[in-house]
């Protein structure tokens, strides 16, 4: 009897509701110019993170691997990474509102994944269930997407602060947002970190592909290499100071959206085949 992977959806729902509550609580506090009650916000955010972690944990137990077998799980893991990374970064870089924005991103990703039940299809033999290296590759790749998600968040924060300064806007939101220089600094670190993680993931994937050619389809290969190359070019342009400040921030946001959308064709192909051959999103090479 196949494992019932739908039983843990309640945990994901609770996590998403808590992220949503955290985000809207922060939004109302900011728009009403009242003091953000940090304890309430953090309780909601941490609550969401804990429930989501439990959901992923039970999924992992059922699948005997890190749950990355369908688009639903990928989006959930990405949201989980974004909040987790932010919780660490918040302590390291002392960036105001980073958690608020991360709650917003995670809310979006979670709602997107939960409102599309078709994306949570059952996979008898997922990509991570074969070789542990493939599982490691997939986990690293999604983690790097989480880092790029955070980069997109800090870039949005940069663009808002930049808009406020260039349009002569003042207000609580602008005063609470981190400074331009802080955001520049963290963006430069995040792009290096994200590209490094993705490079390791791509290298592992490439070695696996060499060992077992034909297990990965051309489309997936092209998309993976395109995303990696795009972020690599972005890093190169940043380091040679050819793309800095607002243009760099805009590019980070656009590229992250493109990276998310790049999952879409793979998802569709996988979904079409899921009912027939019960494979995950990485199966487009299969007949």
């Amino acid at each position, binding site marked *: 009897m196949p494992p019932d992977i739908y039983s843990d959806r309640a945990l994901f729902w609770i996590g998403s509701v808590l992220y949503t509550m955290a985000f809207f609580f922060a939004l109302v506090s900011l728009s009403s110019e009242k003091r953000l009650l940090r304890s309430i916000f953090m309780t909601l955010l941490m609550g969401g993170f804990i429930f989501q972690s439990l959901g992923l944990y039970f999924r992992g137990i059922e699948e005997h691997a890190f749950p990355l077998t369908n688009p639903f799980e990928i989006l959930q893991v990405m949201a989980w990474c974004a909040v987790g990374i932010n919780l660490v970064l918040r302590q390291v870089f002392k960036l105001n509102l980073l958690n608020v924005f991360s709650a917003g991103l995670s809310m979006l990703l979670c709602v997107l994944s939960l409102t599309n039940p078709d994306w949570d299809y059952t996979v008898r033999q997922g990509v991570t269930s074969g070789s542990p290296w493939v599982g490691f590759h997939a986990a690293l790749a999604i983690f790097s997407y989480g880092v790029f998600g955070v980069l997109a968040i800090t870039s949005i924060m940069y663009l808002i602060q930049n808009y406020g300064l260039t349009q002569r806007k003042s207000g609580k939101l602008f005063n609470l947002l981190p400074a331009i*220089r802080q955001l520049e600094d963290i963006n430069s670190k995040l792009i290096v970190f994200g590209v490094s993680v993705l490079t390791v993931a791509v290298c592992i994937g490439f070695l696996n592909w060499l060992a077992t050619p034909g297990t990965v389809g051309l489309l997936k290969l092209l998309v993976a290499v395109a995303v990696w190359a795009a972020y690599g070019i972005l890093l190169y342009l940043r380091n040679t100071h050819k793309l*800095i400040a607002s243009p760099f921030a805009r590019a980070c946001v656009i590229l992250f959206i493109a990276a998310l959308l790049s999952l879409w064709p793979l998802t569709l192909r996988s979904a079409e085949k899921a009912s027939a051959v019960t494979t995950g999103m990485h199966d487009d090479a299969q007949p």
Partner: protein
Amino acid sequence: MPNPEPTHLFLLGSSHQTAPIEVRESFALGMESAQQLYRQLKTAPGLNECLILNTCNRVEIYGVAGNDNSREALEKSLSETDGFNAQAFLKHGFWLTDEEVVRHAFEVAAGLDSQMLGETEILGQVKSSYAGAAELAATGPILNRIFQKSFQAAKWARTHTGIGRGQISIGNVAADLAQRVCGDLADISVLLVGTGEVAEKTTQALVSRGVKHVTVAGRNLINARRLADEFGGPCISISDTPRVLGYHDVVICSTAATEPILRKEEVKPALKERPTRPLFLIDLALPRDVEAGVGRLSNVYLYNLDDLAEIANENLKARQAEVERARSAIVERAQRVWSAIRGGE
């Protein structure tokens, strides 16, 4: 247990609301005069409690008397105080009694009666005056209660209304913006071009928020040196400004030059030296010292006097919109305190 003696609470004062600056200068109380006045008030017949609030914008004497002849006794004490222009003070003064006094004390502590609406410095001054009076045993149960409650009311108003929202002086607006551009001001370098008073005050506002490195550029090197010494930094000739621009994060210009001293062509090379670090230019000069086109360069934030004044005015309007809300809550609190005092009699 009811107090058998009736309480006459009064306030004799003069402030920026009633006296122009040249008059206020004439009755500013020095430390010695304030001490002398306290001694006289403590021996004044029928005066049970007193407190002198003495700031650059106001001299206010709060008192509790056992009879209603307190005003004459107080005016007599004032006229006998050395170095105090009692005549000017009384001419430009105001007299409040009972609940009005409580209300006024609450409004003063909350910054609602300040020249710079909603400012926070006054609360510290009121607290300090109260501590001084309490130390001299000049206050008693009534003034203790009123002032302690006024501190609570001020805190409430600051927390629950927007009377302290935003900065309303050019210097502080610029310092706020510098923090939005640069973050922690402790590790930035400021270049002050020109020695104008507004620029000096703006630099002082930045220094008060942690700026440690200030370079002064001036045509008159003596003036520049004097100002640089004040901020503990080096001074340079104004002609060297473009050359050192790249080493500074905030540049404040306020020269009397008739032509811009910073043009796009001069700023661009400086930006190449610091491609990822934003540059914040504050142009306080009229005519302007920085060419408008400089503001369109990437990673450059250019603000002139009008921009800063507009933000300050917006903040002031936002504060004024909150004043009535704060005032009505404070009046309610003052009424409650006064009723409690009356009930205790």
